[in-house]
Structure formats: C-alpha cells, structure tokens
C-alpha cells in the first residue's frame, strides 16, 4: 500500500521525468545526438533503476516495477469514461473468472503546466510483471545472423506456433466480449489496444491483459476488430520471418480469428 507521502514523491518523480523529456535538448542528448529523421529513433525513452524502468514519451510517463508488477503513470489524453470502464471491466473479470487484467488501484487528476493529466496506479493480478509475446518469440529458435531462418525449425514446431496463435485469438475473444458489454453499459467506445498480442502477459496462474488502461474508450467495435485483426496478422507474418509459420498456417489462423471475432 502506498502512503500519501510516498505517492507525493512518486508523482514528483513522474513530473520530473516529464520535464526532462519535454526538453528537445535533453531528448537529443538521450539519443546521442541523433533525431527521428534518421528512421530508427523510438518515440519513447527508457531509463532503468534497480527495480524497474521509467518509460517517457510526449503524452505518457510511466514507471514499471519489474519486481512486483506495480505500474504508475501519468497520461495527458484521457476521459472520465476510461477509468470507469476499465474498472468495470476489472469487476467483470473478477465476477466471471473468464479473463484477467491489471488491477486498477488508484487514480487522481494532477495539473502539469496548466493541463490536467491523469495519474493512476495499477498492479498485475499476481504481483508479477509477467511475460508477453516478445518473451515467447525469444523461446523460438533464433535467426542465424539475425536474418536467416533457423534450419532446426520443424513442421511440428510450426504446428505448435499455429496453436499458440489460435489460443491467442480465443483469449482475445473472451476479453473483447466483456469489454463490449462494458462499452454498451457506459454508452462509449472500446480501447483500441485491448487485444494486441503484446498486451497479453502470462504469469504462474495464466494469461492477463495489460497496458490498455492507457487507451481511450472511444473506438467502435468494428474499428477495434479491424485494428486487432491487422495487428494479429502482422504478428503472424513476423512469425513467418522467424520461420515458425508459413502461408498456409497464417491463412488458417486468420480464418479462425476472423470467425471467432465476428461472432462477438
């Protein structure tokens, strides 16, 4: 439990990071003199400390504690609906026991340079930061010289990857179903990134969905489905680059996901 005094210190730390990141000179220094024109500079900066890392970008500053899955963040673009809907969805997660998401712990509005930012605290459901799609990718046979498909990849391995993606579509379908229910109740849209493959984490208990607390609940169901399908397909093609999928399996997975998601 964070005390009021501790929270004050935390918020100040986030404010300081925002001030730092808002300075073009600091950002140029952070990227070692390069700028975005060169085509590789990320839109965010990462600073590590002993327990986790700060994530800095224009409209979002967050700190993620990797030891216990506690996340604090401030974001510039928000609406009252967002936190209400997210909290409602969490309640449904508890009631239904069909899916898991990060636990909303605390929220307040703070003012930075005349603009209201939303400060929030969340915690992963088992106090464990967890692992996401990218960690699973690192379990695949690595590319030779970073480019060439590893010849050790078997048809059986591709089958297991296809099964992984089918399961991803299934678990996405579950949380989407409940999010649609929340959106309807609150007469609003949906969070765009809710079922991105990299939003799904796993811990010792199972999967849980993370990070979409930063989204605005504004997109239509069709927009979210179209976007989710495009991202899902992109990850399938990334798997093909890594040699763990092929065109036939990609088609089977996309057909499966499309069928599942159109019945939500």
């Amino acid at each position: 439990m964070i005390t009021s005094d501790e929270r004050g210190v935390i918020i100040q730390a986030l404010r300081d990071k925002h001030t730092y990141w808002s300075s073009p000179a600091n950002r140029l220094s952070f990227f070692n003199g390069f700028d975005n024109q060169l085509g590789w500079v990320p839109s965010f900066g990462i600073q590590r400390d002993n327990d986790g890392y700060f994530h800095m970008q224009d409209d979002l500053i967050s700190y993620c504690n990797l030891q216990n899955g506690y996340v604090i963040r401030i974001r510039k673009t928000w609406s009252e609906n967002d936190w209400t809907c997210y909290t409602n969805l969490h309640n449904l997660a508890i009631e239904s026991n069909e899916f898991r998401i990060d636990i909303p712990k605390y929220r307040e509005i703070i003012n930075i340079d005349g603009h209201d930012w939303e400060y929030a605290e969340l915690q992963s459901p088992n106090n464990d930061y967890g692992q996401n799609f990218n960690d699973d990718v690192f379990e695949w046979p690595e590319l030779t010289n970073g480019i060439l498909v590893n010849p050790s990849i078997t048809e059986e391995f591709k089958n297991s990857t296809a099964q992984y993606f089918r399961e991803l579509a299934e678990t996405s379908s579950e949380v989407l179903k409940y999010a649609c229910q929340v959106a309807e109740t609150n007469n609003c849209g949906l969070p765009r990134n809710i079922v991105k493959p990299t939003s799904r984490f796993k811990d010792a208990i199972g999967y849980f969905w993370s990070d979409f607390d930063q989204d605005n609940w504004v997109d239509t169901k069709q927009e979210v489905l179209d976007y989710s399908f495009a991202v899902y397909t992109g990850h399938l093609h990334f798997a093909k680059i890594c040699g763990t999928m092929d065109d036939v399996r990609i088609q089977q997975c996309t057909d499966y996901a499309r069928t599942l998601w159109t019945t939500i």
Partner: protein
Amino acid sequence: MDNDLNRYFVTLDVYKGTEKVYSTTIPRSLLHTISACKYPGSEFNIRVIDHTGNFRIKTDAF
C-alpha cells in the same frame, strides 16, 4: 546494472553499415516497437542482443 532484472531487457545496437553508432536498452516487452524504427531504404539497421549477449534478430529481416 547487473542484477536478475537484466532478463527483462534487450540491447538495441544501431548500425550504419558495419559501424555501430548507438546502443540502448529497452524492455523486452516493448521489442515490437522497433519495427516502427526501421523503414525501407534506411541506411541504419538495428541488431537485437538478448541479456546473455546472443545476437537474436536485426531489422534487415523485416
């Protein structure tokens, strides 16, 4: 920083041709974001190094 949290991070080494021009560390959970840091025809490529020092993937593969 040398503790067991290293497993959560990867190093991005940025190359211009064969010359390494920059290096940074990001959480592995954000690794997918590098696909947006590389566009066709860019003279730069990014090599991803895992916490054990293994060279895993470079953006030329995209």
